[in-house]
């Protein structure tokens, strides 16, 4: 057996020999301190950002920086959206096939009905224009002739359930301002809530903070449209009980002017259809459920209505 050539040390309990300090301890505690400092600084910085951003006006320093940042990010968002669009379209095409047959029959019946209405409406519109001309009638800004449409892509959606907004690829450089109404071919989408140089955020009609004065086209009942209980649904509230509502009635923007105040939405933009109504004896008003015409989950392009003359509003 080969003997190890090592010098042995005798460990004596209670001996005053100094014990060497573990080498890793100081570096470990330094790392822990560094870790806490970094996390603390970042959290503090976030809180400072929230506070300053929340308290400063819309044209403040942080807002300007954010606007510049959004302008820088815009090409990336547009590129990403364009790459994804064919896949989304393909998905939409296959999803649409499932309901195509039943929808086809329904739409054919609807086309027949609407064709009759178009003829009636064309005559009525012509008559209305003639009468307005003869009376020198001064009215509210009218849709669409008093507005310049700015068509743009939807490029982003907030990644949370707390913001019913979409980002669009047009901003103040295109003449867009806060509170400009936003529509699609189907109807009212919402209004512009934040504007940067080349992007803007649009608050959707399904946002709890957005209310729109509305009119029942068939029965002339008026009320206020706001978000509904379910996702993507709307309600028509504050309709006088003396007024009549029926399922299937068309709801459009009312448009109004009181003194110097004018509704930001021109009259006559379609919102949706009455799908049901509830009334209890203790309520002062009707509250009706409205099925929106616009599919808020699949917005791809929208039109911002920029008033030709902002002094009219």
């Amino acid at each position, binding site marked *: 057996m080969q003997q190890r050539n*090592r*010098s042995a*040390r005798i460990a004596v309990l209670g001996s005053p020999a100094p014990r060497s300090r573990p080498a890793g301890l100081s570096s470990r505690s330094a790392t822990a301190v*560094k*870790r806490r400092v*970094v*996390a603390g600084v*970042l*959290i503090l*910085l*976030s*809180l*400072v*950002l*929230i*506070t300053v*951003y*929340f308290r400063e006006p819309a044209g403040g320093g*942080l807002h300007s920086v*954010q*606007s510049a*940042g*959004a302008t820088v*990010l815009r090409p*990336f*968002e547009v590129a*990403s*959206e364009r790459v*994804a669009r064919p896949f*989304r379209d393909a998905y939409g095409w296959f999803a649409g096939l499932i309901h195509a047959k039943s929808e086809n029959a329904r739409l054919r019946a609807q086309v027949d009905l609407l064709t009759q209405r178009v003829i009636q409406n064309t005559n009525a519109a012509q008559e209305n224009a003639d009468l307005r001309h003869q009376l020198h009638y001064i009215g509210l800004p009218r849709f669409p002739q008093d507005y310049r449409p700015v068509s743009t892509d939807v*490029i*982003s*959606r*907030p*990644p*949370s*359930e*707390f*913001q019913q*907004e979409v*980002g669009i690829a047009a901003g103040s450089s295109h003449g867009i301002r806060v509170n400009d109404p936003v529509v699609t071919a189907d109807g009212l989408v919402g209004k512009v809530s*934040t504007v*940067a140089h080349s*992007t*803007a*955020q649009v608050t959707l009609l399904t*946002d*709890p*903070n957005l209310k729109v004065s509305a009119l029942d086209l068939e029965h002339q009942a008026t009320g206020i449209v706001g978000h509904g209980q379910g*996702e993507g649904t709307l309600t028509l509230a504050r309709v006088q009980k003396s007024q009549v509502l029926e399922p299937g009635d068309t709801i459009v923007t009312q448009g109004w002017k009181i003194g110097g105040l004018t509704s930001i939405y021109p009259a006559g933009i379609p919102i949706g259809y009455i799908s049901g109504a509830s009334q209890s004896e203790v309520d002062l008003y009707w509250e009706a459920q409205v099925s929106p015409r616009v599919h808020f*989950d*699949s917005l791809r392009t929208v039109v911002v209505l920029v008033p030709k003359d902002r002094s009219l509003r």
Partner: protein
Amino acid sequence: MRIGLVEPAKAAALVFVAAILQVTIFSQIDILGGYPDVVLLTLVGIALLRGSIYGAAAGFFAGLIVDTANLATLGVTSLLLTIAAYWIGRYGETTGRDRARAPFVSVAVATILVQLGALILHYLLSDTVSARRALLEALPPKVALNLLLTLPVYALTRRLLALATAPEGATEVRLLG
């Protein structure tokens, strides 16, 4: 292990792409009322693979991009993601190290906590919030979708960050004395 400038640049690029994809594509994928959060999934990968400091910095950066792209209140998403990624990083550095289920546990817990935190923050900032919508309707599908995407996103993050697969720790034993 010494980390140069390449690693942070890679992580920053990864977070940037994830944030852009989130605001343009993934936020529109509505499945049963929820949608996946690839920013959070990417942060889980970065924090577990690179630690809490790295994770917190990446979370802050990701939050800034998301809030800037959405013209939302700056700092809100940064705060949530910084805390979430720091916690995930600490979990990875301590109990979660080398455990196969660590990414899944991190994703599930972080998704729930971030959603709760967002609800509280938005309420404090006077936004109109619906706890029923956020917690009962959107959260369960969001957790499920995030868990579904955990493996591919984590694998991709691991691959892009080119993490050595060899276990960390002592590689040789030296006799002293």
